[in-house]
């Protein structure tokens, strides 16, 4: 029945517009074992950095009334271990794997990608210039169109594969940063990363997160993502990968209607590991007009 539904992204045809957002699916291996990758067009990996990072001190997750604050801090085993162990295993994923890349300096991004080019596994890259949970790099990069363009140009010069630049909603103009990414040669932009958030216990005056602030995600953020997807897709001609607030099939269709090429599911995947299958099925039934 759903044969006619196709989404083309980076010259490849997919039967689903759903991408599993970075940090919520690992490298897809555990989900694959349980058969939970059905319905996902691609998995976007946990951020990979040049050196291993142990991540931020716990607690790393704090729930708020209507969402989730995280402060993971790009915990990952580093690009060597990713190349030696994770990517060979990920070669048998039933869908493509996009590697999310983070760095503390501008030069870190091409350096990590140069290494990843050694592997045949990645379908493309997502360049994370917007992590709210690290001292160096992170938001500061994404907020500056000049730095976004410079990183994009450097990545373009070294990468044989397409890449998306994951932008921040927290500082600067996301539209200007998207235009800068396109100017630098990016093949997509991810709109966007988590919103800077904080929780404080009014009794003690203390924040539960050790770095005080963290990345906020919630189904309630959907309209903020829709607005940013709409504005960036109007201002650029590269695909916009929507990310933020999706927990229903209607949300995916809304983001696609607002200009997204593909739609990421993140926090909701923590709640429903089989979210991709569930969301795709109900999306197809909506498209077919059946209940």
């Amino acid at each position, binding site marked *: 029945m759903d044969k006619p539904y196709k989404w083309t992204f980076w010259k490849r045809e997919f039967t689903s517009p759903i991408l599993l957002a970075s940090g919520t699916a690992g490298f897809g291996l*555990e989900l694959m074992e349980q058969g939970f990758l059905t319905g996902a067009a691609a998995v976007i990996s946990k951020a990979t950095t040049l050196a291993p990072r*142990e991540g931020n*001190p716990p607690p790393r*997750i704090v729930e708020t009334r209507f969402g989730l604050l995280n402060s*993971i801090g790009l915990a990952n085993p580093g690009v060597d271990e990713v190349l030696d162990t994770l990517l060979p295993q990920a070669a048998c994923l039933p869908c493509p794997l996009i590697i999310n890349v983070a760095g503390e300096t501008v030069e870190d991004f091409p350096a990590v990608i140069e290494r990843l080019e050694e592997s045949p596994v990645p379908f493309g890259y997502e360049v994370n210039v917007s992590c709210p949970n690290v001292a160096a790099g992170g938001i500061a990069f994404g907020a500056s169109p000049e730095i976004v363009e410079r990183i994009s140009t450097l990545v373009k010069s070294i990468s044989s594969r397409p890449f998306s630049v994951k932008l921040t909603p927290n500082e600067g103009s996301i539209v200007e940063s998207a235009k800068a990414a396109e100017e630098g040669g990016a093949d997509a932009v991810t709109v966007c990363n988590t919103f800077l958030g904080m929780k404080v216990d009014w009794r003690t005056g203390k924040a539960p997160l050790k770095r005080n602030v963290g990345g906020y995600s919630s189904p309630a953020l959907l309209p903020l993502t829709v607005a940013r997807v709409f504005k960036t897709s109007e201002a650029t001609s590269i695909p916009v990968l929507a990310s933020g607030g999706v927990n229903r099939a209607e949300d995916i269709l809304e983001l696609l209607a607002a200009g997204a090429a593909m739609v990421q599911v993140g926090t909701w995947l*923590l709640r429903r590991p089989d979210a991709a299958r569930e969301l795709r099925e109900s999306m197809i039934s909506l498209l077919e007009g059946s209940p």
Partner: protein
Amino acid sequence: MIIEKEEILPGVYRIKFEVPAPYFIEAQPGRFIQLEVSHDPFPVTRRPFTISSVSESSVEIVFEAVGRGTGILAEADAGRSLRLLGPLGSGYRLDPGKWLLIGGGLGAAGFPGLAATVECDLLLLGASSQDKLLTIRETETVTITEDGSSGRKGLITDLLETVHWEAFSSIALCGPIPMMKAVIDMMPVAARAITQVSAEARMGCGWGACEGCSVPKAGGGFLKCCSDGPVFPADSIDWERWEGIH
């Protein structure tokens, strides 16, 4: 689906879920489930609960209604269906020989299944008062409470002075982190080496992907509570750092 619910102590509930056979019967003690406590999107994440006991077609949890998730669950009645994910994580290494179980408060919630599986020779249970003291059936139990309402008056560590550590080949420990740290500090090195700890942490995915539920690892770095544990050898944890978190 919830098939039984009972308030076993004030604010402490035992809930039995019907689950499809045979997914849970072979879940070793110490593993956990995650529940979507609400059909609403909020609270967003599932809540982890240690498995208290299992049968061919059911799984039981015991919890105290202390926060938002457990509060909602405490209101749920028999007949209600909830999404349940599990069994998750890895449980106790079930070595033969005599076991000593040490529990603090609701930390003993996972002990019924363990006590029924291993040769449990002695169970030491501590709590603030009788109101928070779980009963583990058919197990030789010594209790202590801070207010003296059950057993001796004092802390769990007061019971340790007379323990013949060398009589046991395995020790299971579960409770609040400061309580577990105090117990660990009082143990002889040899006892520590045979102790398995059931840990808890604020958890995201429950299956190793999100790196949310870190427990400080001895020698540096972090363990993932959900997939490396939740049961860990006591010696694999950096107790100073772990206690410092809370």
